[in-house]
């Protein structure tokens, strides 16, 4: 008799409790975060961790949410071998439903197979290598931030819109430079712009006068450069020596103070592009910073914090909608189209890549990298060389 009574009492008690305090009855759901929490780029990892934590806290504080979320945080140290270990650990734990993962490209690309094998849906929040989403077609892997491809599309779009038509391409022959050359050439093919010459150079080359003399004969409007700051500085300086007046159009690789210090006034008018954006430029940047500051975290969100927040928010939305089930969450993420978020609209293509990526355009003005839209070049007050 007593035995039979027990379950009934429990159910009754549960109902009673439910009526008094509905929050306590919420089912617990685990979600994950992986990023570099130690090592050289840990500032970015900690900023991402805090931002994801913020997304979870805000959701738990929301009375309308169906579940109570618990965040599991693991450190990939920005090392591929460590990343595979922690990714396996997270993916093998079946009650973790989905995760926001990786800032470093090397760790993100190393772990995609693990997520695929274990069927864990992930949203990459910071790594920019195109291959992470495009090498395979894994339904588990998504990414909210843009890639080298988007960066070059934005680049080609802006320079052709400014009226430039002929381009000489210089790239360093590393994977980074080659990737930029390929994606820029592909992006430019869709515009009226034309490439008049392509030059591969060594990543530590000193003298570019021979290449630049050839370029001078080709007389392009723009010299596109896919590579990093040190040789970017040399090429820009030697352009001047040879009297080449073309616009110098770079990639994220030269967006650094060292570029400006290395060139002084010659840096003026250099264009460059970078994935992501300063927080204050994002659609939901103000909201995000207010909430972030209110939590009094030890570290700032850094460049990709808002993306980490958006990645986790997307995961939580999906779980709310279809329930805590990995399979269903994957199906739900496949349908993300035109979704509003603090980083703007999110639309995943068939590879899980956000196609509405945020790319920031920069131009050097008075010894600073200035966001293009805020610059005197965009307002027409100053003019780039040969501007038509």
């Amino acid at each position, binding site marked *: 008799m007593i035995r039979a009574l027990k379950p009934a009492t429990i159910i009754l008690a549960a109902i009673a409790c439910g009526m008094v305090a509905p929050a306590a009855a919420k089912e617990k759901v685990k979600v994950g975060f992986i990023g570099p929490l130690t090592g050289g780029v840990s500032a970015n990892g900690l900023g991402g961790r805090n931002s994801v934590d913020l997304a979870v806290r805000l959701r738990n504080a929301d009375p309308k949410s169906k579940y109570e979320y618990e965040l599991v945080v693991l450190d990939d140290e920005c090392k591929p071998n460590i990343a595979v270990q922690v990714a396996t650990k997270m993916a093998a734990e079946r009650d973790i439903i989905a995760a926001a993962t990786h800032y470093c490209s090397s760790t993100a690309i190393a772990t995609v197979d693990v997520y695929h094998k274990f069927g864990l849906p992930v949203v990459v929040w910071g790594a920019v290598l195109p291959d992470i989403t495009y090498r395979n077609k894994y339904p588990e892997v998504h990414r909210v931030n843009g890639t080298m491809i988007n960066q070059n599309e934005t680049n080609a779009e802006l320079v052709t819109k400014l009226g430039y038509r002929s381009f000489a391409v210089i790239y360093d022959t590393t994977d980074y430079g080659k990737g930029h050359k390929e994606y820029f050439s592909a992006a430019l093919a869709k515009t009226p712009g034309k490439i008049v010459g392509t030059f*591969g150079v060594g990543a*530590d080359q000193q*003298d570019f006068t021979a*290449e630049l*003399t050839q370029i001078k004969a080709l007389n392009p409007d723009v010299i596109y450069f896919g590579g990093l700051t040190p040789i970017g*500085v*040399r090429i820009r300086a*030697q352009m001047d020596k040879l009297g080449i007046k073309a616009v110098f159009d770079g990639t994220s690789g030269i967006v650094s103070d060292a570029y400006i*210090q290395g060139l002084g006034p010659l840096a003026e008018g250099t264009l460059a592009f970078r994935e992501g954006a300063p927080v204050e430029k994002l659609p939901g940047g103000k909201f995000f910073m207010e909430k972030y500051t209110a939590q009094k975290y030890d570290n700032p969100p850094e460049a990709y914090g808002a993306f980490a927040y958006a990645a986790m928010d997307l995961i939580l939305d999906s779980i709310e909608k279809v329930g805590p089930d990995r399979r269903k969450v994957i199906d739900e993420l496949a349908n993300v189209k035109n979704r509003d978020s603090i980083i703007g609209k999110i639309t995943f293509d068939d590879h899980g890549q956000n196609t509405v990526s945020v790319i920031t355009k920069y131009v050097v003005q008075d010894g600073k990298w200035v966001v293009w839209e805020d610059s005197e070049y965009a307002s027409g007050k100053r003019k780039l060389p040969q501007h038509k």
Partner: protein
Amino acid sequence: MDPGLLAQYVMNGLMVGMTYALVAVGFTLFFGVLDIIQFSHGDVLTVGAFAALLTFVGLRSAGGGAGAILLLAMIIVAIFAMAALGMLIARYLVLPLRTAPALNTLLITLMLGTVLRESVRLFYPQGANPKPFPALLPSNSLSLGNFNLRLDNVIMLTAGALVIAGVEFLLNRTKLGLAIRAVAQDEETARTMGINFVAIVLIAFAIGSGLAAFAGIMNGLYYNEINFGMGLYLGIIGFAAAIIGGLGSIYGAILGGFLFAALQTIGTVALPFASAYKDVFAFAVVIIFMAWRPTGLIQEKISERV
């Protein structure tokens, strides 16, 4: 080809070739007096360029003066500082190893090069980044079609040629030069003739290292940018140039320097593949040269008798 364009290539080649030749002359001098390869020579060039930059920064913050005076001060400080560094290297690293196998000298100078290079990177403020080098020469230029003739390039070429001519005069027309040549030819006979062997070696190292400092400043003025790694590459090319020319011969070194620059220019301009391969091409030709003429284009007049 368009004549203006051709003239531009020749000018670029001459400028680069002059730097290579200045470095190669240093290698050949050291080899001449001591039969050793001083592998930190390229990094002495880097330190020289940075010494000049430091002089510039120091003088300017102290009030400065006109561009020409600043430049003169930079050249004097850098050349004398590097001459002193060269003598220190000779006195405390190379001469004590006279009796040890040649491999030891090679290794110790190679390691010294790394020490110099890394020291610039670590101790110069933000030394890992490229540094802007002031443009102190008049930058007037004459545009002739595709050819941009710059006054500063002409000044540098002339100055480089004068320096090399000066070294040549010193070696072939003065008593000091005679002593250096005597030591190069036969150390023991030179000693018995009353020549102070150690002093001559130190002087040869001072001259070679001073030349490297001059080349470093020229490089800085030409590119308006210097960095901690510039000497490594220039050192290897200068060494290769000295080898094709014929180690021990000053004319060979000069010829080798300009030849190497010509090869690089041809590799970029005339060959169908990406210009990234220009060094592959140039060094491949050096290898073929060495197989063809193992002693270089111009041989040392007296071959060593064992």
